[in-house]
């Protein structure tokens, strides 16, 4: 397993229905874009290791849809789907995002792959229609994460949130 010291920046501003994520990758935008967009790549990394991806499919064109299902070891499934609104490889992808558990809460995600020295900066901005929907989205990530060991959490909190 590779160890990286590349920090993931996650910002959830209070009162705004937005999530910002930024992360550097040591690969050119062309490759990063494919790895985060094409299902055959996506299913190899998206989500924690203990979650199995049972469905990962995408119709890669504007107006095309995608669908992804995670299954936890206890059988719980988390299913997500959306539609591509803009596909401009290797720089920009815009699409909708919903969790099947709350299909009315549709978020819009803009993903940018910016070339930087030595690699790519991926910048994702997810805009939900309400703050509550945003919070629920984060809470779902929490559920998925919480099934796994909770051991590193406190270290992470100390390291990443002491700003």
């Amino acid at each position, binding site marked *: 397993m590779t160890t990286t010291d590349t920090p993931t920046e*996650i910002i959830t501003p209070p009162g705004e229905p937005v999530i910002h994520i930024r992360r550097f990758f040591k690969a050119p935008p062309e490759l990063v874009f494919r790895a985060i967009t094409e299902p055959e790549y996506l299913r*190899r*990394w998206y*989500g924690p290791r203990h979650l199995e991806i049972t469905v990962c499919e995408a119709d890669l064109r504007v107006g095309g849809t995608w669908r992804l299902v995670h299954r936890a070891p206890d059988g719980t499934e988390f299913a997500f789907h959306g539609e591509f609104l803009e596909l401009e490889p290797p720089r920009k992808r815009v699409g909708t995002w919903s969790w099947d558990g709350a299909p009315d809460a549709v978020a819009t995600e803009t993903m940018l792959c910016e070339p930087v020295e030595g*690699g*790519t900066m991926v910048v994702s901005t997810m805009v939900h229609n309400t703050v509550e929907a945003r919070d629920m989205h984060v809470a779902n990530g929490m559920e998925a*994460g919480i099934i796994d060991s909770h051991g590193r*959490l406190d270290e*992470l909190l100390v390291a990443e949130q002491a700003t």
Partner: protein
Amino acid sequence: MTGNELDRAFGALSDPTRRAILARLAEGDAGVMDVAAPFPMSQPAITKHLNVLEEAGLISRHRQARQRLCHLEPVRLKQLSDWVGSYREFWEESFERLDELLEELQGTKETSTRNTTGGTT
């Protein structure tokens, strides 16, 4: 923490006055008068904010002598930071896997150009 509690807690935090009140209480318990002092608003207005914070579980109030003191409840704040922390964990682990995948893909495609990865292509 239920979705409802989360909503209330984040709703409570979405106001600058209430965040300032929490910052004040982080220094120690205080009565309503003391809490209200720095703000250009009436005491009933401050009391409303305190009610919101109390309903969200971010503060509690108790009597001491003739005063009602407000007390910061750090557990709730910890839960909120855990909430973001676990989401972070989801992404940290995903991105580590993506690092591995990218390394693997570049290894097979370009037969290891580790020193000068990136560049123009």
